[in-house]
């Protein structure tokens, strides 16, 4: 089967997932505090998580093209489709950005500009005043629209050229060479701008706190989630009879990436934690103290699920080739990194909400049913979009110069 047919049953299933998400969000909204902290924090959490997965799919596709990799080509449409989700991510993050302008939510302490007035010393926050040049709604909105828009634009170029290759008129590889240019350009653009957006979207919920490593740490978390979702998607599609040419060799390599980047994520986690713990500077340790004191299960569970489990299970060769073990780890790690983002965002948002007189609702100490329901809604939206994109063209490319290498891939 060269083309993916997005069946009515799959649509119904994913649409019901989206409806479930909407019901959960509506339920959350109605039982929320006056600031709707729980609703908006869930909205931000999932928007950031899935937008980042789309970014990482585009980023890794670009890195693979730039590095002349050949092995992934037979399933590259999965990453193309994931990457195109950036347009939805752009919409979601723009809602948050407009929320800053019109004060629909109070996720970020810095959106309260009354604390920037030095003539009111009892309210004045000198640290946030120092950051106001960056932490303001203009930067947030402009960065979101321009940078995410740019990422999406490059993804559409890569996608168009990839589809053009399928026509088979590309004897001198000119489409592929053009893809190399876009892909190479995407790497530094994503490298520089994603850091800025991570600071805005995520790090600034703890608006006083800072860490230079934070952007790379977040990026690694997104990356592992993206690989986990890729593994699950390919397994599902193979189960439906698609991707006959994606063999256990490809699955094995994806398993290696999941293993390696889980360790890389842990490396960054440890580097950030250890340096802050060792130096013991109050402005920095407050971040971990808050999480250690109030979220001990999530804090340690984060490491157990995202490091210990993939490390121990995927260390062997055969567990990376067996669907049971690899699929299980991919599913757990995917949820694990979603919890990692929960832990990055919720404590800071809760603190801000408390300051503003809200936050006396569930869903902050630990994710409840409404949080998981919302996540399922966003996941179904992501998959619905990705499957739609997959169904629009050949599922397996036909004339990529590396296609034969990918078909003969052997670990």
């Amino acid at each position, binding site marked *: 089967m060269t083309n993916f047919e997005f069946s009515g049953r799959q649509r119904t299933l994913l649409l019901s997932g989206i409806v479930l998400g909407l019901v959960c969000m509506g339920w959350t909204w109605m039982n929320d505090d006056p600031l709707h902290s729980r609703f908006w924090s869930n909205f931000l959490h999932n928007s950031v998580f899935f937008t980042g997965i789309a970014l990482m799919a585009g980023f890794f596709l670009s890195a693979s093209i*730039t590095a*002349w990799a*050949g*092995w992934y080509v037979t399933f590259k449409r999965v990453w193309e489709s994931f990457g195109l989700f950036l347009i939805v991510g752009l919409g979601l993050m723009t809602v948050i950005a407009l929320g800053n302008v019109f004060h629909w939510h109070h996720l970020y302490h810095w959106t309260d500009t009354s604390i920037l007035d030095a003539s009111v010393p009892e309210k004045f926050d*000198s*640290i946030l005043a*120092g*950051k106001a040049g*960056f932490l303001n709604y203009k930067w947030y909105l402009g960065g979101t629209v321009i940078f995410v828009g740019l990422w999406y634009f490059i993804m559409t170029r890569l996608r168009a050229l990839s589809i053009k290759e399928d026509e088979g008129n590309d004897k001198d*590889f000119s489409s*592929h060479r053009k893809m190399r240019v876009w892909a*190479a350009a995407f*790497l*530094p653009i994503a*490298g*520089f701008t994603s*850091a800025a957006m991570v*600071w805005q979207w995520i790090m600034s919920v703890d608006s*006083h706190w*800072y*860490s*230079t*490593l*934070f*952007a*790379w740490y977040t990026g690694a978390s997104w990356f592992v989630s993206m690989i986990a979702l890729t593994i699950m998607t390919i397994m599902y599609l193979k189960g439906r009879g698609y991707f006959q040419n994606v063999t256990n060799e490809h699955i094995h390599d994806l398993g*290696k990436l999941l293993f390696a980047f889980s*360790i890389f994520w842990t*490396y*960054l986690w440890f*580097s*950030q934690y*250890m*340096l*802050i713990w*060792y*130096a013991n*500077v109050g*402005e920095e340790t407050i971040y971990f103290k808050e999480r250690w004191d109030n979220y001990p299960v999530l804090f340690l569970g984060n490491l157990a699920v995202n490091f210990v489990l993939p490390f121990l299970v995927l260390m062997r060769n055969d567990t990376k080739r067996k669907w049971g073990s690899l699929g299980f780890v991919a599913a757990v790690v995917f949820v694990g990194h979603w919890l990692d983002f929960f832990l990055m965002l919720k404590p800071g948002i809760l603190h801000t909400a408390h300051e503003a007189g809200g936050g006396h609702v569930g869903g902050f100490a630990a994710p409840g049913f409404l949080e998981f329901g919302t996540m399922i809604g966003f996941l179904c939206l992501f998959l619905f979009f990705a499957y739609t994109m997959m169904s629009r063209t050949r599922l397996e490319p036909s004339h990529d*110069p*590396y296609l*034969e*290498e*990918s*078909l*003969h*891939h*052997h670990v």
Partner: protein
Amino acid sequence: MSSYTSPIREPLVTGHKTYHQITEDLVSPTEKAPNAAWITGFLISVSLLGFGLFCITWTIWHGIGTWNLNRTIGWGWDITNFVWWIGIGHAGTLISAILLLFRQKWRTGVNRAAEAMTIFAVLCAALFPGIHVGRAWVVFYFFPYPNTRGPIWPNFNSPLLWDLFAISTYFTVSLLFWYTGLVPDFATVRDRAKGFRRKIYNFLSFGWTGSAKHWQRWESISLVLAGIATPLVLSVHTIVSFDFATSVIPGWHTTIFPPYFVAGAIFSGFAMVLTLMIITRKILNLQDYITLAHIESMNKVILTTGTIVGVAYLTELFIAWYSGYVYEQFAFFNRALGPYWWSYFGMMFCNVLSPQIFWWKKYRRNIALTFFISIVINIGMWFERFVIIATTLARDYVPSSWSYYSPTWVEIGIFLGTIGLFFTLYLLFTRVAPVVAIAEVKSILKSSGDQYTGPNAIHHGSHDDHSDAHHGHAHDSSTHADDHSHSDSKGSTYMQVVKDDLKKIEGIGPKIAATLNAAGINSFEDLSNSDTNTLQSILDNAEGNFGGNSPESWVVQAKLAFEGKWDELKDLQDRLDGGKY
């Protein structure tokens, strides 16, 4: 490894090499007397090393006071040099371990020299903490040993001690990795040697016989060592970065240091690999093994890591402002605009701006420019460490402690001495071991040799002879002439050696075979490189009546024969009628 190579890939071994020629080209430098360039280089290196040893003796004899360290600047050129050398040592393990796991075939051209470089660079680095302790005779204070100062090892919670463990582990694994790769190559050298030299190489190769069992074990241990070495690539410079980042010194205490130091180390390591390989390939005539494709790939790594380092520099700068922490802000203000502003701008220019030229393919494949940029990066990465160390320490919290630092002749002399040590060891290495891994290059020949892939592969029948086939691959004007004469001479030797039975081609009988031989077509490969029109004109001009014979299928048949696809050839011949379609 995939059994298929995409036609879009460039060949990595040029000159239509046979396995024998690879052995010949790579072993011969160890068998000949050194040339004048080698002797000159060796004398200069040994002299520098001698001066360095003198300065080290001077330091130990007179004490650390012969350096210009002062009350706030406790680390100067010594630790700058230490970090610089350790960083350089990273590329070897990256190339041999991580690129092995990533199945990057181009690593085979440079991994041996890069691993050697790693070991020599780590030796140079290890020297500095050794002499920096001042009283070298109590250096055992580093080590955990029973003592009267308490139950806990006195320095165990210091990253400086972790450094000792990290670097010695790294050195051990790198050495094992390097030596494991050398074992089959030493056996190759042995097989060609006589007398005492044979005995030595036999000892060095552990009596390697080349049996399937040996190869199987060798491949297993290479993979295991790659697995062990991969985390070490990250761990060593991570712990070096801890030396700084665990402190509370503004400018040092920042969480991005570990990955940023690792990226910088790979960056500087690749710059040094390029510096060495560009000289080595020229002097030892290795242009067919370290091709422009290799240099281009390394330049891409340079561009990538240089830009990652750029992201880190700007992140540090931005977060210093963002933090709202005045001392952090001042540290960066001072770096950029303080008394050492020139080293900060040198660092930015050399490490972030200069590699950006490699966005253009034309420049990535320009050897002279690549060499120049590699030197610029070597300097820039030294500046980076100097900026981090001296600039930061020169401006303490208390302005009354502010000071300035410049090195004494002793400190400069020790640095020059390590450069001498590095090049002395490297030059000796080129004399005793093959600088390109013979066994590993042979392993990629069938997939990446230019007779099998790329524009000069033999299925492109448009080339008349071998020498013509080499015109395409060298774009660089400075070495074009060298590449040429080199390849041509190899090509002609090759043609004399190989002679196949052309009668196996359907349609060629003994007379036509003799005619073709007279026209210089001796092997299946020669025939497959010919085109039908040329063959027809050879037949037309020859004595005898070959009018009934058409060469239209010969090129295709010869290609199958050359590639050993006898079954396919037989199928084809079954379908042919007297060599005609």
